[in-house]
């Protein structure tokens, strides 16, 4: 061998084509793994309760179900289920309330909204629309017990509850006034809203670097002072900005805002934290940019939107009679060849859970549903499960390894994805 001859280099510069092929190969492998993971979903049915209307899963895995009045405007009772210990406890029920006297009974009758604290240990329930403002009710998840009321009765009248993703200890409530709660305190303490500016459609913004509670009382929103308006849709962006829309206008506008709140009760702010859906116009959904509150998109949707969910890819999925995919960046929407009434996107993967009615009879309670897990990229159904009764709510666990489906038949369906098939 000639020792002076330098070895011939095998590859000086990696081929871009090769790199692209490797990336594409990784994508194909990831796709296969995703298919196997979701295809091997283990569905289990647990008959927990009769007819809960909504379910919420805490970051610690506790499941809260609530029963609502016939028109869905009042919470009748709340129960907490711990999947690990398989323990279910009704923490608020009319029979319990009757023992608490007239004031407590009235409070329970007015509960309209509930949410888990970001730490997952507490459940908070709020009441609305009563001339006498009411405080938040706080429940401990582990022992499934009522811990007490928090806040002064004259300042809290929340419409809805939102968590700040940037600091797990903050919670926002909105109603005739907005409060930010430090729920890690014992007992939780409210902060007063700090006002930044009144924007053109009466939105109020709290910057992350502002300290709540420092501003004087005259900075309270006028809606609070006048008592004629209300706030809806409080939302935190990733940088800690809190946004809420207030209105002093007519009941119809207010009800529309509440409708928007109800529609977007899962994820109101997009996964990229740039867009915020605030209102649903006639056959369209309007999105606003969080930082400026400028309108970002108005996308065409079916006349009635029953459910909205942000996909991990940043698209917004809207379900009415048909399913629409809204590309928020471009403001375009397209109808997908699916029919579903309810959608709930996976927090990590490009998978969306759809609930579609198989047979719609005159008696809605007799309908049965299929829950489909659909990959949004190619609309392939990766898993499917028929469930009896209407699908009232669906919720992914925070790590995306479980899907909870609540039906009007009183069943809690759990779809678990295990590493081992």
């Amino acid at each position, binding site marked *: *061998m000639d*020792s002076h001859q330098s*070895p011939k280099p*095998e590859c000086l510069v990696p081929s871009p*084509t*090769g790199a*692209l*092929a*490797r*990336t*594409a*190969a*990784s*994508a*194909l*492998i*990831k*796709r*296969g*793994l995703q*298919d*196997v993971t979701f*295809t091997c979903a283990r569905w289990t049915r647990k008959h927990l309760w009769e007819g809960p209307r909504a379910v919420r899963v805490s970051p610690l895995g506790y499941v809260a179900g609530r029963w609502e009045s016939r028109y869905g405007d009042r919470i009748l009772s709340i129960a907490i289920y711990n999947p690990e210990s398989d323990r279910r406890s009704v923490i608020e029920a009319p029979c319990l309330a009757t023992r608490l006297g007239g004031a407590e009974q009235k409070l329970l009758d007015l509960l309209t909204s509930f949410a888990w604290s970001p730490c997952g240990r507490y459940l908070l329930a709020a009441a609305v629309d009563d001339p006498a403002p009411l405080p938040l009710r706080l429940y401990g998840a582990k022992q499934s017990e009522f811990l007490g009321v928090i806040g002064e009765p004259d300042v809290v009248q929340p419409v809805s509850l939102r968590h700040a993703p940037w600091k797990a200890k903050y919670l926002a409530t909105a109603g005739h006034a907005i409060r930010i709660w430090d729920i890690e305190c014992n007992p939780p303490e409210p902060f007063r809203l700090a006002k930044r500016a009144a924007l053109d459609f009466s939105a109020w913004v709290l910057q992350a670097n502002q300290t709540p509670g420092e501003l004087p009382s005259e900075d309270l929103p006028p809606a609070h002072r006048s008592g004629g308006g209300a706030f809806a849709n409080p939302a935190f962006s990733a940088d800690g900005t809190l946004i809420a829309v207030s209105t002093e206008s007519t009941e119809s506008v207010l009800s529309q805002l509440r409708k928007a709140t109800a529609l977007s009760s899962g994820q109101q702010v997009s996964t990229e934290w740039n867009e915020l859906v605030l209102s649903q116009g006639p056959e369209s959904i309007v999105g606003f940019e969080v930082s400026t509150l400028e309108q970002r998109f108005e996308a065409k949707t079916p006349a009635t939107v029953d459910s909205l969910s942000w996909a991990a890819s940043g698209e917004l999925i809207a379900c009415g009679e048909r399913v629409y995919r809204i*590309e928020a960046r*471009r403001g*375009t*929407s*397209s109808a997908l*060849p699916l029919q579903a009434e309810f959608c709930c996107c996976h927090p990590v993967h490009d998978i969306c859970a759809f609930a579609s009615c198989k047979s719609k009879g005159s008696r809605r309670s007799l309908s049965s549903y299929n829950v489909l897990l659909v990959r949004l*990229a*190619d609309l*392939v159904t990766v898993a499917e499960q028929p469930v009896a009764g209407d699908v009232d709510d669906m919720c992914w666990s925070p790590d995306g390894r479980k899907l909870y489906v609540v039906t009007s038949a009183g069943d809690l369906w759990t779809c678990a994805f295990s*590493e*081992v*098939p």
Partner: protein
Amino acid sequence: MHKSIAHLPTPEEEELATKRVELNRLEDELAERELRLAGIRGELAAFQRRYFRTVGLLYVELDEINAQTAEQQARSVKTEAATSAAASARQRARESRAALDAQATEARDFAPSAELKSLYREVAKRVHPDLAADAADRSKRERLMAQANQAYEQGDADRLRKILEEYETSPESVHGSGVAADLVRVIRKIAQAKKRLAQIDPEIHELLDSDLAKLKAKAEEWQKQGRDLLVEMAERVQEQIAGARRRLEELPLD
């Protein structure tokens, strides 16, 4: 009486001997770890080839049909959203095709013999780049080690022998003279070996944490239950292909 003078080792020579023992131990350990790393790489590569031959090509077919469907819809609907969806579908089909083309279509099982393992261990011990004395030596060792890895993955014992022979007869394998120089060389080799040993475990963890390794682990779990994961995946994708074909055929022509 004439007495022969016994050569007593100098402190440097004693130190050199101690360091050589340490280096030998490290070389053995390094060869063993490299063997494990190469084994994992080989197994994953073999699984990847089988995956692409069994499932990957079906994904490519499915993506192609979906792209045709989206293009057909875009031609009939003529909206911006439909055009955009068609372009995305076509891009996806193109990428899947590129991924498949880049793969070796011939699936091979990776089952190294004891002789092959022993040969690889010997090559790793002798020609490992992190045991090089200088830049030129390192360059040569890197080239030979890459060839050795490839030969091991392909189960080519003859090629491993040739690599070993090539290095043994090359000038770089001749050590310099002088205790001090040897001592410095050995100390540097020890440092390099330790550095490489520290790198191997994270590399192994990274490989085992990859999507491919997770898929392979699932396949092994299925195998214990008497099922073939890849075959079942392929059957499922074939059903999806049939559905996609039906959707394409149902679309109105231009």
